[in-house]
């Protein structure tokens, strides 16, 4: 039972609202530079579990950053609500929300030292000085920057600035930490290191991380769960494996990892829906008479010498990548498939005939 400020009882509309950050029917429309209305958030309903590392993935302009800023209170929703457990965030100004943000540009205060940057939020909360000092030292130790507290942000490397921004946002012990493409400005090697660091810090603090990125690899490696955004709404929400193995539509399959798309007509055969790829038949869950798109991951296809039970194809291209062999094979009907082969590598001759093996479970029918 929960009471409001006046002591009246009210019953939470949703019983399991306790352990989640709930976005309910959020809508937000912007006006573009050309004067056209753009739906940044199109009726988004999303439940983020407290304590998880949640990744919002999508191309630029898909609404993920708008949603993040709406949770922070830097953007106002046209309609819809955001709840953190039983607290309605929507009406609160940014400084009253138990949420902090790591900005894409870091937004470190240039006139303040690293130490003062981390202390900023604590000073705003009017904490006693010794508490602030203790907390700042703790945070700088957490991000391994204890020895640069006296420096100005401009004297730090990009990776260090990134970690100061993280320490500053974590210093206030937010219930939810929002990260807006925090690693996009770092080079690849540094980004990998920071990904590990973020994962470690998230485990260590137990704080809910909501992480926005357009990098699918980053999303897969970081997220406990991922929401793939398409045109202002999540197209699919799930664990990295669910999203990778069972994409709900062509957009998600295409955005996550590398995928071959094959179109085929569904035929009814012995009461089952089937499609034919290069003369081989596969059971699918789709009504007969339709044309469907199926997604096949390159690493799930086998290529070798032609033989029975294999699809006859032609090897069009072959590239040796060290850890794997990438090739392009042509099906009898002319459709091309990209294939990634792990060692041991078979003997293949570009231009020659090959046998293509597609396991039945490698085929996923995706909506367009």
């Amino acid at each position, binding site marked *: 039972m929960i009471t409001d400020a006046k002591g009246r009882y009210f019953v939470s509309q949703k019983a399991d609202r306790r352990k989640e950050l709930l976005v309910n029917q959020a809508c937000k429309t912007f006006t573009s530079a050309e004067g056209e209305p753009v739906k940044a958030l199109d009726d988004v309903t999303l439940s983020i579990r407290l304590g998880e590392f949640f990744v919002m993935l999508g191309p630029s302009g898909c609404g993920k950053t708008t949603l993040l800023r709406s949770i*922070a*209170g*830097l953007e106002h929703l046209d309609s819809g609500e955001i709840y953190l457990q039983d607290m309605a965030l929507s009406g609160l*100004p*940014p*400084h009253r929300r138990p*949420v*902090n*943000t790591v*900005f894409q*540009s870091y*937004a*470190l*205060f*240039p*006139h303040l030292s690293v130490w003062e940057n981390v202390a*900023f*939020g604590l000073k*705003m*909360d009017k904490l006693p000085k010794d508490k602030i000092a203790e907390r700042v030292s703790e945070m700088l130790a957490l991000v391994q920057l204890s020895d640069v507290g006296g420096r100005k942000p401009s004297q730090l490397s990009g990776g260090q600035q990134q970690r100061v921004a993280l320490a*500053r*946002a974590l210093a*206030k012990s937010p219930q939810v930490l929002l990260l807006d493409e925090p690693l996009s400005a770092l080079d690849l090697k540094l980004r990998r290191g920071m990904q590990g660091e973020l994962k470690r810090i998230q485990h260590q603090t137990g704080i809910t991380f909501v992480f926005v990125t357009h990098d699918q690899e980053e999303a897969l490696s970081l997220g406990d769960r991922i929401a793939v955004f398409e045109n202002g709404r999540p197209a699919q929400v799930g664990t990295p494996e669910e999203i990778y193995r069972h994409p709900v539509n062509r957009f998600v399959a295409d955005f996550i990892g590398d995928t071959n798309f094959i179109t085929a007509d569904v035929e009814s055969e012995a009461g089952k829906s089937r499609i034919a790829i290069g003369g081989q038949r596969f059971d699918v869950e789709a009504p007969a008479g339709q044309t469907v798109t199926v997604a096949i991951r390159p690493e799930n296809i086998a290529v070798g010498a032609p033989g029975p039970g294999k699809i006859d194809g032609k090897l069009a291209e072959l590239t040796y990548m060290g850890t794997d062999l990438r090739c392009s094979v042509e099906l009898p009907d002319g459709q091309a498939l990209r294939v990634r082969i792990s060692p041991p590598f078979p003997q293949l001759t570009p231009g020659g005939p090959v046998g293509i093996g597609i396991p039945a479970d490698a085929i996923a029918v995706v909506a367009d």
Partner: protein
Amino acid sequence: MAARTAVRPGQLSAWFTTPAILLGLLFTLGPIVVITSFSFMSQPEAGSGVVMEFSLASYQHFLFQEDFYGQMYFDPRYLNAFGLSLWQAVGTTALSVGIGFPVSIWMATKPPKTQNMLVLLVTIPFWTNLLVRTYAWILFFSGDGTANTVLSWFGIEPQQLLYNSWSTLVALVYTFVPFAILPMYSALAGFDFRLAEAAYDLGAKKLDVVRKVLWPAVSGGVLSAVALCFVPAFGSYIQPVLLGGGKVLMVGNLIADQYGSARNWPFGAALSVIILVLTLVGAWALLAWAKRSAQTVSLAV
């Protein structure tokens, strides 16, 4: 054999800059040297000009006069002109910066294209001669001018609005508002408004954001504005002459008088040197403050 510094491609030998340096020295140091030496020379028996005879009389003349019996006594008349200049300069600076600051914020938060347009609008007055623009204020304040016409709509009798320190102040503020807007605008335009968002996110209220984030970033620009208004307003000449009508004696007019009707060149030079020294002390203090608080204060537009 003396080693010669190699000239890199795209770089000219140091000799090519010599004419520019000489010209620069001639027109900046030259007048200062002339004025400073004049201030330590003597007045000729008759007529204007100076005679080459060392004298501190001009500096003494600033504060003391000789009475009929040859006794020196303290005369605050010239000091009063300094005082009036000081007040006019303080008023001009306060009003110009006060009007300019909200305008600068408004400008800096517009889309980039609009901002360029607005900067152009602010600089439009510079395209017309200052003398002409100051004359326009005479027409505005005159007996049958715009100001009195507006007053008459409210049934107020025509007033003598011209030739006092208030009309002078209005013309000075009018002149210096663009000089206040430009440096403050440029500081604000360089301000990353995402920092304000970060501050809000970390629990800062509006006032905290202005005090702790916006002000440290733009205070350098505000100080530049103060310096750019105060220094020229202190020595202003046209506005007190035209709108003060000879009744408002500011340092600028006082100096002009010494080279004109009063025919006391050494004293005019001494007054200029006093202003120069005061200004240098002020600028030095400003820069020292700027260095201590790691601010960028620009003393030029």
